[in-house]
């Protein structure tokens, strides 16, 4: 019964599908031991020839044996066509084995197609290539992937003693624990780690990422510098009435998105240590975030920024986002503009403080950090700008908001702590043109759909 099945199968393969049926191919296709496949092929050939002597079957055989050549006995293994089989056999001194290699309908000119058939079937069965073989090796046990990857990692790490690059690639693990480069970064804000600990705890639910986030935040903080003073004010500051609800929504979504943030963090952390953290942060923030969102991000570090990146589309805040986007791209650093969080500002409504709670908390810290690490590269500062835009009802709204701006002189940083009031005058000059640019953009954006990114030509349209 079962015997007939395989005969039929072979018949079908050879005659109907016109395939080249090698013993290996048959073994994998039918899932039988190779020797059994060879015997099946032989059986088929015999029967077919008995039934129908004019059958169109060409068979190749494998012959192996030894013969004396050049004074020593050489073992030969050869694939031969049926018509040459007897001749080859007669030449061999000792014939070790003969068996059917393949059956096909057409006469083969050379052994190339045989090899191709075998190669194809092998490729599709690479993982269990010795399953049907006659020899089983006890020592050949594939290692578990985790084990092999860890061993490969060890191999890499042992070779990459200069691991300043490692921080750039893989492994949050290496980032968090070790390479010297990342260490430098983390060392600076070492003292601040404690300060951020609470913030981190509040922010991150996940444990794993926490170390990364802390490292990030620390770096952010160091890079960012002083956001501290103004933070509390800041949050309240740019809460113009119109913007209030939006911001609230934003924050809510942010909360919800925290998880996402965590998820994104890995990717962020990858980029982060690469450059000066400010630069890294800047990148994430560049994705057109509203000032508020930006500021929030700054406080929470990359995470926030990242989440904003993800969520900004989904959420509102188009208007604010648009404003920030272009200038951000020009100015280097990102949201960490320790904006002189000018305390004054348009009446800060008691905004969604709960979500902002953690944020303001961090605000005080960054500035101190910043001063301590005053020599850092360009910091992003919060500068008060007034933005004009067209809101939903077609009314032109002007509001003063903080947006991050890069500032290279450290003097600014010192100033930040002292009086934020001084800052605006200094910065306003710079900001004015920017605001104007933003204004028209904002208008178009407001009119436009959500998530639409303003192009550089928006400036001209509006005017």
């Amino acid at each position, binding site marked *: 019964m079962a015997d007939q099945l395989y005969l039929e199968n072979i018949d079908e393969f050879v005659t109907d599908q016109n395939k080249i049926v090698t013993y290996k191919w048959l073994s994998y296709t039918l899932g039988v031991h190779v020797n059994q496949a060879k015997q099946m092929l032989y059986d088929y050939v015999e029967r077919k020839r008995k039934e129908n002597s004019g059958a169109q079957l060409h068979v*190749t055989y494998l012959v192996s044996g030894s013969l004396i050549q050049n004074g020593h006995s050489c073992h030969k*293994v050869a694939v031969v066509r049926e018509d040459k089989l007897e001749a*080859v056999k007669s030449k061999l001194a000792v014939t070790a084995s003969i068996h059917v290699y393949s059956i096909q309908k057409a006469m083969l000119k050379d052994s190339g197609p045989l090899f191709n058939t075998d190669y194809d079937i092998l*490729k599709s069965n*690479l993982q269990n290539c*010795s399953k049907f073989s006659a*020899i089983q090796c006890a020592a*050949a046990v594939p290692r578990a992937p985790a084990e092999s990857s860890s061993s490969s990692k060890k191999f890499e790490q042992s070779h990459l003693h200069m691991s300043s690059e490692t921080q750039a690639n893989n492994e949050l693990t290496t980032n968090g624990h070790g390479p010297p480069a990342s260490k430098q970064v983390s060392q600076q804000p070492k003292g601040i780690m404690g300060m951020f600990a609470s913030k981190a705890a509040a922010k991150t639910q996940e444990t794993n990422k926490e170390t990364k986030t802390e490292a990030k935040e620390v770096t952010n903080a160091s890079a960012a510098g002083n956001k501290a003073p103004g933070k509390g004010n800041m949050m309240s500051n740019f809460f113009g009435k119109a913007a209030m609800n939006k911001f609230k929504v934003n924050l809510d979504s942010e909360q919800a998105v925290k998880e996402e943030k965590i998820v994104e963090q890995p990717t962020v952390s990858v980029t982060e240590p690469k450059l000066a953290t400010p630069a890294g942060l800047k990148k994430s923030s560049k994705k057109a975030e509203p000032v508020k969102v930006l500021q929030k991000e700054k406080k929470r570090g990359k995470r926030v920024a990242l989440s904003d990146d993800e969520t900004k589309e989904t959420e509102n805040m188009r208007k604010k986002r648009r404003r920030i986007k272009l200038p951000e791209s020009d100015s280097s650093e990102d949201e960490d503009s320790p904006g002189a969080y000018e305390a004054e500002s348009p009446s800060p409504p008691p905004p969604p403080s709960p979500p902002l709670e953690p944020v303001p908390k961090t605000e005080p810290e960054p500035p101190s950090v910043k001063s301590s690490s005053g020599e850092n590269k360009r910091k992003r500062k919060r500068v008060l700008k007034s933005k004009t835009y067209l809101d939903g009802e077609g009314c032109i709204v002007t509001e003063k908001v903080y947006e991050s701006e890069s500032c290279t002189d450290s003097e600014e940083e010192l100033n930040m702590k002292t009086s934020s009031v001084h800052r605006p005058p200094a910065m306003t000059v710079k900001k004015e043109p920017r605001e104007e640019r933003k204004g028209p953009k904002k208008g178009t954006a407001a009119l436009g759909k959500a998530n639409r990114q303003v192009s550089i030509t928006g400036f001209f349209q509006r005017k």
Partner: protein
Amino acid sequence: MFSEQAAQRAHTLLSPPSANNATFARVPVATYTNSSQPFRLGVGVKKLCELQPEEKCCVVGTLFKAMPLQPSILREVSEEHNLLPQPPRSKYIHPDDELVLEDELQRIKLKGTIDVSKLVTGTVLAVFGSVRDDGKFLVEDYCFADLAPQKPAPPLDTDRFVLLVSGLGLGGGGGESLLGTQLLVDVVTGQLGDEGEQCSAAHVSRVILAGNLLSHSTQSRDSINKAKYLTKKTQAASVEAVKMLDEILLQLSASVPVDVMPGEFDPTNYTLPQQPLHPCMFPLATAYSTLQLVTNPYQATIDGVRFLGTSGQNVSDIFRYSSMEDHLEILEWTLRVRHISPTAPDTLGCYPFYKTDPFIFPECPHVYFCGNTPSFGSKIIRGPEDQTVLLVTVPDFSATQTACLVNLRSLACQPISFSGFGAEDDDLGGLGLGP
């Protein structure tokens, strides 16, 4: 024997004195040769700085062969000679070559009964002779360090085999050799052959791939000379070849322990000793612990039998600078000189070892092989202290479709060759069975 002969006399001397007293003739000297010359203490080993003219002595030093045809980068870049770079030749020997012996302080030219064309730079030898007036040392005899001491191999009870293959030459575009490689893998993994053959194949305890896994053509550096826009999306030929190699290694290591040695055309460092290939190139095969990536030269003790071998760069370099033609002869000669590669670092790239030279044989192996030779050869040689070594030259598989099976119990080697069938050539010819 002596007592029996003496006891045959009839009368004894325990009797009154007799008149006759027999005298016996001493057996004459048939032959006598005094061959205890080596034990004469009259010959001293001297340093070159202590040589007195016309005094016979022994000097030990390192040879340097000054060859006018030897490619020299300095001569090539020198502008005053206006020389074009020399085309590569198969042999750089010339009748005008001269030998110079160097010790720690001085050097001296050699002449006399010493085969200049056979020796190469870097050989350490002792010469016996004397200094002549012209400042050259007239050599009367010389000798090498000869075979190192050898520990005997423990006897084995069953037949165990080690398969030596070299020169797989993947990526070379030769379809014929791919079929041969696949047949080889099938035999070793037990898919091919009758039950008897599969049983024998199961006794193969190890496979050693001795270098040149990739073909020479994968090393082509055309992309350096071409314009960037032409080579933008092209991939190095070695990438595809390494993928093929990974699949082959996967099949092999799923069934038998494999040692992979790098060779001249493989992606590892150029200088000897070559470091193992990096496991990241073989993601599929490194999952198996039976795969071992090893150095070139490689030595190991397999089932009590000491193996030592290289991928053939040392032997082919000596071939270029010596008149010796047979690779097996060169292999034996390196064993007798007790140094794997005397020409390194003069003409063969080598890491600049400072304190110790790892290429000196501290101990004599039982099987000494070298890969990528033009043809198969094997010989058993004996040393002065009863050492027995099996020398094997493993042929280039991509050209000859032949591998070597070493029987560890009897220290014999048998070549094993594979073939398919082609349209044009006579099958028998292809198999080497023709007349």
